[in-house]
């Protein structure tokens, strides 16, 4: 199977990665190469094999439902690229 640049653009949009027109073809070729290489996985018989979800060594844990941390507004906001008082800012979403 081979990728077309339309698909590359669609994926780039989903990933919000920002794609220049010049880049699309180069990335298409590279991704196509990687996909061709992973194609070999199709030879493996995976009938009745469950997907691996962790090593099974970490047991799910319960804890008491209480606040364990918080009150760190300044710390949380300290790396904001832009802020207004206690808020993160973004471009206007609703006119």
């Amino acid at each position: 199977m081979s990728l077309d640049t339309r698909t590359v653009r669609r994926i780039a949009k989903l990933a919000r990665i920002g794609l220049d027109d010049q880049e699309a073809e180069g990335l298409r070729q590279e991704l196509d190469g990687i996909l061709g290489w992973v194609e070999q996985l199709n030879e493996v018989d995976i009938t009745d094999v469950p997907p691996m979800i962790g090593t099974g060594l970490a047991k799910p844990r319960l804890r008491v439902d209480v606040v364990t941390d918080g009150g760190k507004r300044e710390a949380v906001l300290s790396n904001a690229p832009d802020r207004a008082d206690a808020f993160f800012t973004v471009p206007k979403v609703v006119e």
Partner: protein
Amino acid sequence: MRDMTLAAAREALAKREISAVELVDHHISTIEKLDGDINAFITTTPDQARLAAKAADEQLAKGEGGLLCGIPLGVKDLFCTDGTRTTAGSNILRHFVPPYESTVTANLLKQDAVFLGKLNLDEFAMGSTNLTSAFGSVTNPWKRAGDDKKLVPGGSSGGSAAAVASGMVLGATGTDTGGSIRQPASFCGITGVKPTYGRCSRFGTIAFASSLDQAGPMARTLEDCALMLEAMAGFDPKDSTSVDLAVPRYVDALERGVKGLKVGIPEEYRSEDLPAEIQALWEQGIAWLRDAGAETVKVSLPHTKYGLPTYYIAALAEASSNLARYDGVRFGERVPADSLDMMYEATRHAGFGEEVRRRILMGTYVLSSGYYDAYYLRAQKIRTLIQRDFLSAFEKVDVLLTPTAPSAAFAHDEKPTDPVQVYLNDVFTVPASLAGVPALSLPAGLDSKGLPLGLQLIGRYFEEETLFAAGRVMEKAAGFTHRPALFAGSAA
């Protein structure tokens, strides 16, 4: 002080033959001398380090202090350090100053270690060369005999490996997702341990592929790694994949020997393409273990060849999801634009490097509607088969011995342009990462050009002690005392 191991420095500090301030000053001046050429550090913290050394001396004078009191270490710039910039080697985090400390670094600080700074890496730990860092590539302190060409240190923990190898620090933290501790350790002639998945907390470590990421120590010797791992490891309620098991004193396992130990040699790791020197070193490793009383047994890990493509699907899918958080809103760099979507795109286009963008795209593709089952789910099932390969091998043997990497360090300009060729560097390290089993790399010899080569030991879940014991036998037999061209001792 110029060629001291971490363990020897601890002893000298405890006996007050040297002070922590002297030890830290020596390492700071080595950084000043060498790091212009190596570029292992993204950020250095000499003032903080001197203060910490002073505090360590006060404790040592009273006969107190933790396991690593006064020991100068470097921290891969993927671990969040409270108040010290943490970049992940990416432009998008160029000015990020975490307001909290990762559990692994907090554990080291609890044992009174002294941090000299943050170490360079491939951007978001994605790479095997350290050429993808937004803060410039790292140069391997080793040179080929009679050749001044700059070599890569491996990656992604290449800054960590180079800093340890050149004597700028006594040990460093690394992280390993598919070989990022073991491969650079091999390229730089040092020792690196990737513990069992769940042994070291992932809390506060910037995520690449969460089901694979595992922190571990990098240092000159196994004893040094054993001391560091004891400090780094431990249960952490803040990481849901952390395993609640007591941390042993790994140093106590070092001299256990290998009498009666069964060492598996995986048939599938042999290949026509493996350079003869690496094949020969592997045979040498087998002989060392046999001479010390181990029994070597051929084993089969039938799904080995599917390890790399499986790894890339799983790791890239997780990466695309983990890196969604870098959107220019709450932290990291922002490129302003008129709409929210345009801001996201402009921010991520400017903030991420080429390899990271490629991997996010690939990961998004394999998770996208209509392809999830064909790629991601299939890969996770094959991952089960790879895990079963290891579990059934470990019914017959106690450890596995393999080469760490299919080559020695290569030059900056010898990196293949095809991404798939670059990925092949991790062929021997990726399967253990997929299964979550512990593995280590130790320097076993030099190739004909004078570059270090590593051998890898892989063990059962939470049997790091067996790895240390078997590794120690090989370390003694190898007697690896070679030092790189750029080294603290030779730079004075």
